[in-house]
């Protein structure tokens, strides 16, 4: 799950080409999603989550629900309140 999340985030440009989830994750989850990203970032996340999580090696079903991002949203809450809710086996 954590690995899938890292791939989703990396695909949107944060840590592009980075392949070290253990290094990214602890730092990233504390970061508030910057305001200039609020407009189109939810759509990019859902598109990335669908592409990554619905395919091998995960093959999960992905609910079509964009995250709600406001000034208090962190990358932690995107993981626990959004991605964890929209994928299932």
């Amino acid at each position, binding site marked *: *799950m954590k690995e899938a999340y890292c*791939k989703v985030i*990396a*695909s*949107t*440009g*944060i*840590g*592009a*080409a*980075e392949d070290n989830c253990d*290094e*990214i994750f602890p*730092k990233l989850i504390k*970061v*508030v999603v*910057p*305001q*200039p*990203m*609020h*407009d*189109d*970032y939810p*759509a*990019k996340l*859902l*598109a*990335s989550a*669908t*592409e990554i999580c*619905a*395919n091998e090696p995960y*093959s*999960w*079903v*992905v*609910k*079509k*629900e*964009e995250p709600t991002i406001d*000034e208090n949203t962190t990358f932690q809450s995107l993981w*626990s309140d959004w*991605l*964890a*809710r929209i*994928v*299932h*086996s």
Partner: protein
Amino acid sequence: MKTIALILIVFILSGADVSAQELDSSNPPKLIESSETIDEKTRVIYEIECTFTTDLGDYQRTVVGNPENWRVLGTRKVFTVRKIGFSIGDSSKCWLRGNWDLSDSLSVLFLGEKKEQLRVDAHEVASRTTKWGFGKGKAVDFNARRLTEQEALYAFDFDFKSKILERNLSAGGGGFWVRSLSLDLTSTGTVASDDEVRNGTQSSVAFSANPYYFVGGLIYGGKLSFSYQLETQMNAEEDKLFDVTHKQFKFGVEAEVPYSNYPVYKLHTVTGYVRLAMPLTLSLEYLPVGEGEGGNDALARLDFRALYELAFSPYLIVRGEWHHTRFFDVPAGVDKEASYYSLAFAQDLDVLKKTLGFCKLILGGEEDIRGKHFMFYMISSGGKAPAFQDVYEQSLGFGTYF
């Protein structure tokens, strides 16, 4: 004997758990649009999301996961539950998969091990999520700046956008994804205290599609738009701040290249600062001949724009922008091309709160303002739409963007 007693105790305890397992009537089943990929083909499926009053343990999952323990009823038909999925992050949820008739009213019945029945009214089942929405996505960015080389010139940059109408599609497959179709109202420009400044506005009503393309583990954003645009300039002779100079249709293509973020991210891991996952943004717009001032034609033109930003830390954010315009069927004596560049060096105002304690009074105490407000120094040169005044400017300013 002891073994039998133990089995009985386990059975009784398990039975108690199962009997407590009830659908949450305050959170009724919803029809959910999801994506499933089989043999590399992504397809849309409609599932019924059910929420229980408590988390599902391993034993409860075996009961809940048995399709025989569910009934989905239409008005005249009982639908077969083909498969049941469980949430990876939320243990109180499960999803029912089947060939539902989406035009029918559906009722969900969980029988459970003891054949207890909890019925959810059909009208509680949510309808499809794709529908037109109104007035979403309003956003305003604003800059105020003082031009340093002039006597007393001030300029205000603004960027306003709102979706008048939006249909959220979030549909696609094979790496191609379309987020939405929308009718947007946008207005951007500079209002300054003198016509020597690059003073002008562009406002348009645009029909847009937002596609994304996923390749090589990265998502490339894009935008296709068709719009009708009004451009204004300051007319000092007639003392008009917003004199409409051009009315034209516009065809636009925009692409975002995320790979260029890699060096930015490497910096962020060191500094702990994420200003923005800013991709390299490229846009191309074609404006056919339109209506100009005094009954004249507005020249057809092609506008190209490139924008990139590097956030080294809150103390140094660098942003560069380049525009190039080519006019068509230009009369003799008029420039055929125009170019513009700007280079801005900014600091996140959050650094002031950290270094100068009294600034907390102005900047919101303990409130997190990272990435929201900036002070900047900007150099710009050349001419760009709508004014195309070939001027060199240096300015200092504050803004919610820069």
